[in-house]
């Protein structure tokens, strides 16, 4: 299954570069969104529901743009530096917000993101509200750029798999459910919360940096946009929280759905999109994966003798 998906993702750019560059552009947007969604989910697994993903995304974008245009740093190094700056910011923010839970944590992270936007808008060397022009990645070749974001996504997926197969999953889930109980059972809560923040921010920062070199332009309103932060959390909720597949599924369904609506419904496509989103979140609380799981278990129950779960 995973191999088939991967194959399609690799063949797509080869085919699209000849026939349909539009589809490749959509696929690239899907992958950017998917990395953000997965990175948000990694943090959420420790119970930290962030509204700061735009902050890391924006920091990554500005870091690489400044480094490549002002200091002559190669783009690849600039993108990596974007991820590292985001990690440093995340560790600082993570230490400050350790004691905050739920909505208070979300508001604090939102404030962090908004503050960065205002600062960036005021400063001269970041280009103020006009923004900055970034050099193109790999000479502007769309298939090559697609390959890069595919690589970043694969790295994020491997990280997520490693987390969910290792002892980290136990620490993350325990902290998410009850920090005090986790602590008295020996889990170093501070370490794991900050660690999750750092991993999550790295991927957001790298993606933001990548975005700057693909869209060739960065300004405070788009880089630190609330839409980025909200998108990063909506996709995992839509697809299925605390999993690797869920955020990818959610990001794909949302971005493709949005694109399909835009090209078929002439006016009001955004309203229809919002409506679908609201209905899904209201009536499918465990997301697309939850629907899938209950379909499978219903079929298993209907088939006589096929179910072994009840007997075990």
């Amino acid at each position, binding site marked *: 299954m995973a191999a088939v998906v991967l194959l399609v993702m690799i063949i797509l750019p080869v085919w699209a570069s000849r026939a349909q560059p539009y589809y490749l552009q959509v696929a690239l947007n899907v992958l950017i969104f998917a990395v953000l969604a997965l990175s948000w989910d990694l943090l959420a697994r420790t119970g930290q529901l962030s509204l700061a993903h735009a902050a890391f995304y924006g920091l990554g974008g500005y870091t690489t743009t400044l480094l490549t245009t002002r200091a002559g740093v190669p783009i690849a190094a600039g993108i990596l530096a974007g991820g590292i700056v985001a990690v440093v910011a995340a560790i600082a923010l993570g230490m400050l917000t350790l004691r905050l839970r739920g909505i208070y944590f979300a508001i604090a992270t939102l404030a962090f993101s908004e503050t960065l936007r205002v600062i960036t808008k005021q400063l001269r060397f970041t280009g103020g509200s006009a923004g900055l022009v970034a050099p193109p990645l790999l000479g502007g070749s769309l298939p090559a750029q697609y390959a890069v974001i595919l690589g970043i996504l694969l790295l994020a997926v491997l990280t997520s798999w490693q987390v969910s197969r290792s002892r980290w999953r136990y*620490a993350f889930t325990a902290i998410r459910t009850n920090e005090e109980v986790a*602590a*008295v059972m020996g889990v170093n809560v501070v370490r794991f919360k900050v660690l999750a923040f750092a991993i999550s921010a790295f991927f957001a920062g790298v993606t933001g940096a990548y975005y700057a070199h693909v869209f060739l332009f960065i300004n405070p309103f788009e880089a630190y946009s609330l839409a980025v932060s909200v998108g990063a959390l909506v996709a995992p909720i839509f697809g299925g929280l605390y999993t690797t597949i869920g955020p990818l599924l959610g990001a794909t369904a949302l971005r493709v759905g949005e694109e399909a609506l835009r090209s078929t419904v002439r006016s009001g496509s955004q309203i229809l999109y919002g409506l679908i989103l609201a209905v899904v979140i209201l009536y499918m609380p465990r997301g697309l994966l939850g629907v899938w799981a209950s379909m499978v278990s219903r079929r298993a129950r209907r088939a006589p003798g096929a179910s072994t779960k009840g007997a075990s």
Partner: protein
Amino acid sequence: MNLLALHRVTKAFGGLVAVNDLSLEVRPGEIFALIGPNGAGKSTTFNLISGLLPPDHGRMLFDGADLTAAKPHERARAGIGRTFQLMQPFHDMTVIENVMVGELFGHTIPKSLDAARRDGEAICALVGLSQLMERQVTELGVADLKRLEIARALATHPRLLLLDEVMAGLTPTEARQAIATIRQIRGQGVAVLLIDHVMSSVRDLAERVAVLNFGSKIAEGSFEDVARNHDVIEAYLGEEAGDAG
């Protein structure tokens, strides 16, 4: 030497002194009960010992080491395990996974996932959860959740086990099983410090009892000694007589 020594510990919440100048010693391998009326400071004492609350004054020694400033996870690894009065299982996990958290993180030398599962299964067997290991905790009843609380605390392989009202809400049969389990745990050399309102359980189990009232220790000794103590009768048993009247 004492396993645990609280030395003149005080904790206040605003103007309310929850624990007042409390000194307490628990010896290795003994069963010690902390009793007292509601709001006497018993659960606060547990939070101070497990490190969830920092004391305002006083010191805590565990096995000779000063743990006054130690974090909860450091105390867990040093050998202090605890249960919670309100059962708080990790509801996104199965029973064995709940226990594995303690096995994985409650030790100074890290365990592999396989070793943690194997040792966790042994603990589930000890408390009588072998049949339910792969269940989601949301499917468990009260008695099994209490067992899980004990199992999770044991998973850090404590030398001191703090049991916060593990008998409450159990049927007489279940309570007898719990008492047998606690004796078995002590039989392995673990000291037990327990809070309980069920006096018959305290009398059956505890070798020594301390009575708290308004955050202060008002009596200490065998169950029979403190039951005869005038202050205790007034503060604690008197309250029950008042309820009955």
